[in-house]
Protein backbone atom coordinates (compact mmCIF):
# COMPACT_ATOMS: atom_id res chain seq x y z
CA UNK A 1 0.00 0.00 0.00
CA UNK A 2 1.49 3.41 -1.12
CA UNK A 3 1.25 6.09 1.53
CA UNK A 4 -0.87 9.11 0.60
CA UNK A 5 1.96 11.63 0.98
CA UNK A 6 4.02 9.70 -1.60
CA UNK A 7 1.21 9.77 -4.10
CA UNK A 8 0.82 13.54 -3.63
CA UNK A 9 4.58 14.05 -4.01
CA UNK A 10 4.63 11.97 -7.20
CA UNK A 11 1.78 14.00 -8.73
CA UNK A 12 3.49 17.29 -7.79
CA UNK A 13 6.82 16.13 -9.34
CA UNK A 14 5.08 14.92 -12.48
CA UNK A 15 3.28 18.25 -12.87
CA UNK A 16 6.53 20.16 -12.29
CA UNK A 17 8.30 18.05 -14.95
CA UNK A 18 5.59 18.74 -17.51
CA UNK A 19 5.66 22.49 -16.80
CA UNK A 20 9.45 22.56 -17.10
CA UNK A 21 9.25 20.62 -20.39
CA UNK A 22 6.78 23.13 -21.79
CA UNK A 23 8.97 26.07 -20.70
CA UNK A 24 12.05 24.51 -22.24
CA UNK A 25 10.17 23.90 -25.50
CA UNK A 26 9.17 27.56 -25.62
CA UNK A 27 12.69 28.76 -24.83
CA UNK A 28 14.02 26.61 -27.65
CA UNK A 29 11.54 28.14 -30.11
CA UNK A 30 12.46 31.65 -29.01
CA UNK A 31 16.18 30.93 -29.38
CA UNK A 32 15.58 29.56 -32.89
CA UNK A 33 13.63 32.69 -33.86
CA UNK A 34 16.40 34.90 -32.50
CA UNK A 35 18.97 32.95 -34.52
CA UNK A 36 16.99 33.36 -37.72
CA UNK A 37 16.52 37.08 -37.08
CA UNK A 38 20.23 37.44 -36.42
CA UNK A 39 21.10 35.75 -39.72
CA UNK A 40 18.87 38.16 -41.63
CA UNK A 41 20.66 41.17 -40.26
CA UNK A 42 24.17 39.75 -40.47
CA UNK A 43 26.44 41.60 -42.94
CA UNK A 44 26.82 39.63 -46.18
CA UNK A 45 29.98 41.43 -47.25
CA UNK A 46 32.80 43.15 -45.52
CA UNK A 47 32.23 46.83 -44.82
CA UNK A 48 33.96 49.09 -47.31
CA UNK A 49 36.46 51.10 -45.38
CA UNK A 50 38.55 52.18 -48.35
CA UNK A 51 38.18 55.82 -49.33
CA UNK A 52 36.18 56.56 -52.44
CA UNK A 53 38.35 57.64 -55.34
CA UNK A 54 37.90 58.17 -59.04
CA UNK A 55 38.78 55.19 -61.22
CA UNK A 56 39.07 55.12 -65.00
CA UNK A 57 37.50 52.11 -66.66
CA UNK A 58 38.04 51.33 -70.34
CA UNK A 59 34.70 49.79 -71.21
CA UNK A 60 34.35 47.70 -74.37
CA UNK A 61 31.51 48.15 -76.81
CA UNK A 62 30.70 45.34 -79.26
CA UNK A 63 28.59 47.58 -81.47
CA UNK A 64 31.48 49.68 -82.75
CA UNK A 65 34.46 47.65 -81.49
CA UNK A 66 35.62 50.48 -79.30
CA UNK A 67 36.84 51.12 -75.77
CA UNK A 68 34.97 53.92 -74.03
CA UNK A 69 36.58 55.80 -71.15
CA UNK A 70 34.28 55.83 -68.12
CA UNK A 71 35.23 57.54 -64.87
CA UNK A 72 33.56 56.14 -61.76
CA UNK A 73 33.88 56.78 -58.03
CA UNK A 74 34.88 53.57 -56.30
CA UNK A 75 36.19 52.62 -52.87
CA UNK A 76 39.78 51.82 -53.81
CA UNK A 77 42.24 50.14 -51.47
CA UNK A 78 45.56 51.87 -50.96
CA UNK A 79 47.66 48.93 -52.15
CA UNK A 80 48.19 48.55 -55.90
CA UNK A 81 47.17 44.87 -55.91
CA UNK A 82 43.86 45.56 -54.17
CA UNK A 83 43.33 48.59 -56.39
CA UNK A 84 43.90 46.53 -59.53
CA UNK A 85 41.49 43.87 -58.34
CA UNK A 86 38.86 46.47 -57.43
CA UNK A 87 38.90 48.25 -60.79
CA UNK A 88 38.90 45.00 -62.77
CA UNK A 89 36.07 43.65 -60.63
CA UNK A 90 34.03 46.77 -61.32
CA UNK A 91 34.80 46.50 -65.04
CA UNK A 92 33.58 42.90 -65.19
CA UNK A 93 30.52 43.84 -63.11
CA UNK A 94 29.61 46.28 -65.91
CA UNK A 95 29.95 43.49 -68.48
CA UNK A 96 27.78 41.15 -66.41
CA UNK A 97 25.00 43.73 -65.99
CA UNK A 98 21.83 43.42 -68.04
CA UNK A 99 21.98 45.35 -71.31
CA UNK A 100 25.77 45.62 -71.29
CA UNK A 101 27.37 46.78 -74.54
CA UNK A 102 29.91 43.96 -74.16
CA UNK A 103 27.97 41.19 -72.44
CA UNK A 104 30.15 38.73 -70.55
CA UNK A 105 28.85 36.74 -67.58
CA UNK A 106 30.86 36.38 -64.42
CA UNK A 107 31.21 39.79 -62.81
CA UNK A 108 33.77 40.68 -60.17
CA UNK A 109 34.01 37.06 -59.00
CA UNK A 110 35.73 36.25 -62.30
CA UNK A 111 38.92 37.89 -61.02
CA UNK A 112 40.43 35.26 -58.75
CA UNK A 113 43.67 37.17 -58.11
CA UNK A 114 45.82 39.95 -59.45
CA UNK A 115 49.57 39.87 -58.82
CA UNK A 116 51.92 42.76 -59.53
CA UNK A 117 55.53 41.87 -60.23
CA UNK A 118 58.54 43.71 -61.58
CA UNK A 119 58.55 43.56 -65.39
CA UNK A 120 60.84 40.94 -66.82
CA UNK A 121 62.88 42.30 -69.72
CA UNK A 122 63.02 39.02 -71.56
CA UNK A 123 61.86 37.36 -74.72
CA UNK A 124 58.41 36.89 -73.19
CA UNK A 125 57.48 40.44 -74.04
CA UNK A 126 59.02 40.05 -77.48
CA UNK A 127 56.47 37.38 -78.24
CA UNK A 128 53.74 39.97 -78.19
CA UNK A 129 55.68 42.83 -79.63
CA UNK A 130 57.77 41.11 -82.21
CA UNK A 131 60.78 43.09 -81.09
CA UNK A 132 58.84 46.31 -80.66
CA UNK A 133 58.67 48.66 -77.69
CA UNK A 134 60.28 47.59 -74.43
CA UNK A 135 59.10 48.52 -70.97
CA UNK A 136 61.15 51.13 -69.19
CA UNK A 137 62.86 50.21 -65.98
CA UNK A 138 60.64 50.39 -62.89
CA UNK A 139 57.57 49.23 -64.79
CA UNK A 140 55.61 46.22 -63.73
CA UNK A 141 53.96 43.03 -64.86
CA UNK A 142 50.38 42.34 -63.81
CA UNK A 143 49.34 38.69 -63.68
CA UNK A 144 45.56 38.43 -63.85
CA UNK A 145 44.23 35.08 -62.67
CA UNK A 146 40.74 34.51 -64.06
CA UNK A 147 38.34 31.83 -62.89
CA UNK A 148 37.67 28.82 -65.07
CA UNK A 149 33.96 29.56 -64.91
CA UNK A 150 34.56 32.96 -66.48
CA UNK A 151 36.64 31.55 -69.33
CA UNK A 152 34.13 28.76 -69.95
CA UNK A 153 31.19 31.13 -70.11
CA UNK A 154 32.90 33.84 -72.13
CA UNK A 155 31.30 34.26 -75.58
CA UNK A 156 33.45 32.80 -78.33
CA UNK A 157 34.75 35.10 -81.06
CA UNK A 158 37.86 37.04 -82.02
CA UNK A 159 36.28 40.44 -81.51
CA UNK A 160 34.62 39.78 -78.17
CA UNK A 161 37.64 38.00 -76.69
CA UNK A 162 40.05 40.67 -77.94
CA UNK A 163 37.88 43.42 -76.48
CA UNK A 164 37.80 41.73 -73.07
CA UNK A 165 41.59 41.41 -73.00
CA UNK A 166 42.17 44.90 -74.35
CA UNK A 167 39.78 46.50 -71.88
CA UNK A 168 41.45 44.70 -68.96
CA UNK A 169 44.92 45.80 -70.14
CA UNK A 170 43.79 49.38 -70.82
CA UNK A 171 41.98 49.64 -67.47
CA UNK A 172 45.08 48.44 -65.63
CA UNK A 173 47.20 50.94 -67.54
CA UNK A 174 44.77 53.80 -66.82
CA UNK A 175 44.72 53.19 -63.06
CA UNK A 176 48.19 51.76 -62.51
CA UNK A 177 50.51 53.50 -64.98
CA UNK A 178 53.43 51.41 -63.76
CA UNK A 179 51.83 48.30 -65.28
CA UNK A 180 53.41 47.84 -68.68
CA UNK A 181 52.83 44.13 -69.25
CA UNK A 182 49.90 41.84 -68.52
CA UNK A 183 49.77 38.06 -68.44
CA UNK A 184 46.68 35.92 -67.97
CA UNK A 185 46.12 32.69 -66.08
CA UNK A 186 42.93 30.69 -65.71
CA UNK A 187 42.48 28.93 -62.37
CA UNK A 188 46.17 29.52 -61.78
CA UNK A 189 47.25 27.69 -64.93
CA UNK A 190 48.35 28.90 -68.37
CA UNK A 191 45.60 28.45 -70.96
CA UNK A 192 45.93 28.54 -74.75
CA UNK A 193 42.99 30.81 -75.51
CA UNK A 194 40.30 32.69 -73.64
CA UNK A 195 37.34 31.08 -75.43
CA UNK A 196 38.85 29.54 -78.55
CA UNK A 197 40.46 32.57 -80.17
CA UNK A 198 42.44 35.20 -78.22
CA UNK A 199 45.91 33.94 -77.32
CA UNK A 200 46.41 33.81 -73.55
CA UNK A 201 49.89 32.31 -73.65
CA UNK A 202 51.64 35.56 -74.40
CA UNK A 203 52.49 38.72 -72.57
CA UNK A 204 50.42 41.73 -73.55
CA UNK A 205 52.03 45.16 -73.57
CA UNK A 206 49.62 47.76 -72.23
CA UNK A 207 51.21 50.46 -74.37
CA UNK A 208 50.69 48.50 -77.55
CA UNK A 209 47.87 49.94 -79.69
CA UNK A 210 46.32 46.61 -80.59
CA UNK A 211 42.74 47.71 -80.17
CA UNK A 212 40.16 47.39 -82.89
CA UNK A 213 39.84 50.38 -85.11
CA UNK A 214 36.90 51.38 -87.22
CA UNK A 215 36.98 50.42 -90.85
CA UNK A 216 35.28 52.05 -93.77
CA UNK A 217 31.59 52.38 -93.27
CA UNK A 218 29.27 51.78 -96.17
Amino acid sequence: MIPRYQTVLFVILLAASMVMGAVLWQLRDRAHQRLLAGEDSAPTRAPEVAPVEQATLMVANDADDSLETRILSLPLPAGPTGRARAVLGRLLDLYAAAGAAHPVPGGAQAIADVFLLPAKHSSDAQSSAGGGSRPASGEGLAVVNLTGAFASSHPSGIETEALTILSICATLRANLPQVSEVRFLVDGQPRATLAGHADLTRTYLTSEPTGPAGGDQP
Partner: protein
Amino acid sequence: MRWSRLGAVLAAVIPAVALAQSPPAPGSRFVVVLDAAHGGDDAGAKLLGPDGSAELEKDYTLALSVRLRSLLAARGISVVTTRESDVTLDAQRRAEIANHAGAQACLSLHAAMSGSGVHLFISSLSPAQHATFVPWKTAQAAWTPRSIALAGMLNSALAHSGLKVTIGRTALTMIDSMTCPAVAVEVAPEQAAGSSGPSGGIGDSAYQAQVAEAIAAGLLEWRATTPAEGQNP
Protein backbone atom coordinates in the same frame (compact mmCIF):
# COMPACT_ATOMS: atom_id res chain seq x y z
CA MET B 1 72.39 5.57 -85.86
CA ARG B 2 74.09 8.96 -86.11
CA TRP B 3 71.64 10.02 -88.82
CA SER B 4 68.70 9.00 -86.71
CA ARG B 5 70.06 11.13 -83.85
CA LEU B 6 70.51 14.04 -86.22
CA GLY B 7 66.94 13.55 -87.40
CA ALA B 8 65.68 13.60 -83.85
CA VAL B 9 67.59 16.80 -83.11
CA LEU B 10 66.25 18.47 -86.23
CA ALA B 11 62.72 17.34 -85.44
CA ALA B 12 63.04 19.00 -82.04
CA VAL B 13 64.46 22.23 -83.43
CA ILE B 14 62.52 22.77 -86.66
CA PRO B 15 59.05 23.39 -85.13
CA ALA B 16 60.51 26.29 -83.14
CA VAL B 17 61.50 28.18 -86.26
CA ALA B 18 59.81 28.89 -89.54
CA LEU B 19 61.86 28.69 -92.69
CA ALA B 20 60.99 31.76 -94.70
CA GLN B 21 59.70 30.81 -98.14
CA SER B 22 62.02 31.64 -100.98
CA PRO B 23 60.33 33.91 -103.51
CA PRO B 24 58.61 32.04 -106.33
CA ALA B 25 59.93 32.51 -109.81
CA PRO B 26 58.52 35.43 -111.84
CA GLY B 27 55.25 34.53 -113.42
CA SER B 28 54.46 31.86 -110.87
CA ARG B 29 50.87 31.31 -109.83
CA PHE B 30 48.95 33.41 -107.36
CA VAL B 31 47.94 31.26 -104.38
CA VAL B 32 45.42 31.97 -101.65
CA VAL B 33 45.19 29.90 -98.46
CA LEU B 34 41.73 29.55 -96.92
CA ASP B 35 41.74 28.38 -93.32
CA ALA B 36 38.28 27.35 -92.11
CA ALA B 37 38.71 27.86 -88.37
CA HIS B 38 37.88 25.19 -85.79
CA GLY B 39 36.64 21.73 -86.87
CA GLY B 40 36.31 18.27 -85.38
CA ASP B 41 36.31 18.40 -81.59
CA ASP B 42 36.65 22.18 -81.65
CA ALA B 43 33.17 23.42 -82.53
CA GLY B 44 33.88 27.13 -82.05
CA ALA B 45 31.09 29.57 -81.32
CA LYS B 46 27.41 28.67 -81.41
CA LEU B 47 25.69 30.84 -84.00
CA LEU B 48 22.00 31.56 -83.53
CA GLY B 49 19.70 32.71 -86.29
CA PRO B 50 16.75 35.10 -85.84
CA ASP B 51 14.40 32.11 -86.06
CA GLY B 52 16.20 30.33 -83.24
CA SER B 53 18.10 27.97 -85.49
CA ALA B 54 21.63 27.17 -84.36
CA GLU B 55 24.78 26.50 -86.35
CA LEU B 56 28.29 25.76 -85.19
CA GLU B 57 31.14 28.03 -86.18
CA LYS B 58 33.14 25.08 -87.53
CA ASP B 59 30.37 24.27 -90.01
CA TYR B 60 29.86 27.90 -90.98
CA THR B 61 33.53 28.51 -91.69
CA LEU B 62 33.81 25.32 -93.74
CA ALA B 63 30.81 26.34 -95.85
CA LEU B 64 32.28 29.81 -96.34
CA SER B 65 35.63 28.30 -97.28
CA VAL B 66 34.01 26.04 -99.89
CA ARG B 67 32.04 28.95 -101.31
CA LEU B 68 35.10 31.18 -101.48
CA ARG B 69 37.21 28.44 -103.03
CA SER B 70 34.67 28.08 -105.84
CA LEU B 71 34.54 31.82 -106.44
CA LEU B 72 38.32 32.16 -106.51
CA ALA B 73 38.87 29.07 -108.65
CA ALA B 74 36.37 30.43 -111.18
CA ARG B 75 38.54 33.55 -111.39
CA GLY B 76 41.72 31.57 -112.00
CA ILE B 77 43.16 31.81 -108.51
CA SER B 78 44.82 28.74 -107.00
CA VAL B 79 43.40 27.93 -103.59
CA VAL B 80 44.85 25.82 -100.80
CA THR B 81 42.48 24.95 -97.98
CA THR B 82 43.54 23.79 -94.53
CA ARG B 83 40.55 21.45 -94.23
CA GLU B 84 37.85 20.11 -96.49
CA SER B 85 35.85 18.24 -93.87
CA ASP B 86 35.02 18.21 -90.18
CA VAL B 87 38.47 17.34 -88.86
CA THR B 88 40.44 18.62 -85.89
CA LEU B 89 43.47 20.75 -86.78
CA ASP B 90 45.64 22.62 -84.31
CA ALA B 91 46.92 26.12 -84.96
CA GLN B 92 50.44 24.88 -85.69
CA ARG B 93 49.27 22.51 -88.40
CA ARG B 94 47.19 25.26 -90.02
CA ALA B 95 50.22 27.57 -90.11
CA GLU B 96 52.37 24.75 -91.53
CA ILE B 97 49.92 24.22 -94.41
CA ALA B 98 49.83 27.95 -95.12
CA ASN B 99 53.59 28.32 -94.97
CA HIS B 100 54.21 25.39 -97.31
CA ALA B 101 51.78 26.81 -99.86
CA GLY B 102 53.93 29.87 -100.54
CA ALA B 103 50.76 31.92 -100.73
CA GLN B 104 50.29 35.58 -101.55
CA ALA B 105 47.29 35.80 -99.20
CA CYS B 106 46.19 33.71 -96.22
CA LEU B 107 42.70 34.11 -94.78
CA SER B 108 41.58 32.56 -91.51
CA LEU B 109 37.79 32.37 -91.60
CA HIS B 110 35.75 32.78 -88.41
CA ALA B 111 32.19 33.63 -87.38
CA ALA B 112 30.73 35.05 -84.18
CA MET B 113 27.54 36.42 -82.72
CA SER B 114 29.09 39.53 -81.16
CA GLY B 115 29.04 42.82 -83.02
CA SER B 116 27.84 43.11 -86.57
CA GLY B 117 29.18 43.11 -90.11
CA VAL B 118 32.62 41.77 -90.91
CA HIS B 119 35.60 42.08 -88.55
CA LEU B 120 39.09 41.97 -90.04
CA PHE B 121 41.99 41.19 -87.73
CA ILE B 122 45.71 41.45 -88.35
CA SER B 123 48.44 40.14 -86.08
CA SER B 124 49.40 42.50 -83.26
CA LEU B 125 53.08 41.67 -83.78
CA SER B 126 55.24 44.69 -84.48
CA PRO B 127 56.88 44.66 -87.91
CA ALA B 128 60.28 42.99 -87.96
CA GLN B 129 63.03 42.57 -90.49
CA HIS B 130 62.76 39.61 -92.82
CA ALA B 131 65.22 36.81 -92.13
CA THR B 132 65.83 33.31 -93.43
CA PHE B 133 64.97 31.76 -90.09
CA VAL B 134 62.39 33.42 -87.87
CA PRO B 135 60.87 32.34 -84.54
CA TRP B 136 57.86 30.15 -85.15
CA LYS B 137 55.59 32.03 -82.73
CA THR B 138 56.34 35.42 -84.27
CA ALA B 139 56.93 34.43 -87.89
CA GLN B 140 54.17 36.79 -89.03
CA ALA B 141 56.11 39.85 -87.78
CA ALA B 142 58.02 40.17 -91.07
CA TRP B 143 54.74 40.07 -93.01
CA THR B 144 52.77 42.51 -90.85
CA PRO B 145 53.01 45.47 -93.27
CA ARG B 146 51.77 43.27 -96.14
CA SER B 147 49.00 41.90 -93.94
CA ILE B 148 47.89 45.44 -93.13
CA ALA B 149 47.84 46.24 -96.84
CA LEU B 150 45.79 43.10 -97.56
CA ALA B 151 43.33 43.98 -94.78
CA GLY B 152 42.97 47.46 -96.28
CA MET B 153 42.18 45.94 -99.66
CA LEU B 154 39.58 43.58 -98.18
CA ASN B 155 38.15 46.44 -96.13
CA SER B 156 37.61 48.51 -99.27
CA ALA B 157 35.97 45.63 -101.12
CA LEU B 158 33.63 44.74 -98.23
CA ALA B 159 32.67 48.37 -97.63
CA HIS B 160 32.12 48.84 -101.36
CA SER B 161 29.59 46.01 -101.30
CA GLY B 162 27.63 47.75 -98.54
CA LEU B 163 28.88 45.76 -95.54
CA LYS B 164 29.91 47.20 -92.21
CA VAL B 165 33.61 46.52 -91.62
CA THR B 166 35.91 46.98 -88.66
CA ILE B 167 39.66 46.39 -88.59
CA GLY B 168 41.60 45.44 -85.50
CA ARG B 169 44.86 43.90 -84.38
CA THR B 170 45.02 40.98 -82.01
CA ALA B 171 47.06 37.97 -80.99
CA LEU B 172 45.95 34.81 -82.81
CA THR B 173 48.22 31.80 -82.68
CA MET B 174 47.59 30.49 -86.19
CA ILE B 175 48.02 33.91 -87.82
CA ASP B 176 51.14 34.79 -85.83
CA SER B 177 52.99 31.76 -87.22
CA MET B 178 52.11 32.34 -90.87
CA THR B 179 54.75 33.50 -93.32
CA CYS B 180 52.38 35.18 -95.75
CA PRO B 181 50.13 38.25 -95.77
CA ALA B 182 47.52 36.98 -93.32
CA VAL B 183 44.15 38.32 -92.18
CA ALA B 184 41.53 36.77 -89.92
CA VAL B 185 38.03 37.38 -91.26
CA GLU B 186 35.26 37.12 -88.66
CA VAL B 187 31.72 37.25 -90.00
CA ALA B 188 29.15 38.64 -87.54
CA PRO B 189 25.40 39.12 -88.01
CA GLU B 190 24.38 41.42 -90.80
CA GLN B 191 23.83 45.11 -90.18
CA ALA B 192 21.69 47.08 -92.58
CA ALA B 193 22.91 50.48 -93.75
CA GLY B 194 21.81 53.18 -91.32
CA SER B 195 21.06 50.66 -88.58
CA SER B 196 22.96 50.71 -85.30
CA GLY B 197 22.82 47.00 -84.54
CA PRO B 198 22.51 43.57 -86.09
CA SER B 199 19.51 43.30 -88.35
CA GLY B 200 19.87 39.93 -90.00
CA GLY B 201 20.90 36.38 -89.35
CA ILE B 202 24.46 35.33 -89.78
CA GLY B 203 23.37 32.16 -91.54
CA ASP B 204 21.36 33.95 -94.20
CA SER B 205 22.46 32.55 -97.56
CA ALA B 206 22.30 35.88 -99.38
CA TYR B 207 24.42 37.51 -96.68
CA GLN B 208 27.01 34.73 -96.86
CA ALA B 209 27.13 35.09 -100.63
CA GLN B 210 27.57 38.86 -100.34
CA VAL B 211 30.46 38.43 -97.91
CA ALA B 212 32.12 35.76 -100.08
CA GLU B 213 31.74 37.83 -103.25
CA ALA B 214 33.21 40.87 -101.56
CA ILE B 215 36.20 38.92 -100.22
CA ALA B 216 36.77 37.39 -103.66
CA ALA B 217 36.65 40.87 -105.21
CA GLY B 218 39.17 42.09 -102.65
CA LEU B 219 41.52 39.20 -103.40
CA LEU B 220 41.24 39.85 -107.12
CA GLU B 221 42.26 43.43 -106.51
CA TRP B 222 45.09 42.19 -104.27
CA ARG B 223 46.30 39.95 -107.09
CA ALA B 224 46.29 42.91 -109.46
CA THR B 225 48.50 44.95 -107.14
CA THR B 226 50.71 42.11 -105.92
CA PRO B 227 53.38 40.67 -108.20
CA ALA B 228 53.33 36.92 -107.95
CA GLU B 229 57.06 36.84 -107.25
CA GLY B 230 56.75 39.31 -104.43
CA GLN B 231 55.81 37.00 -101.64
CA ASN B 232 58.64 38.14 -99.41
CA PRO B 233 57.80 41.30 -97.52
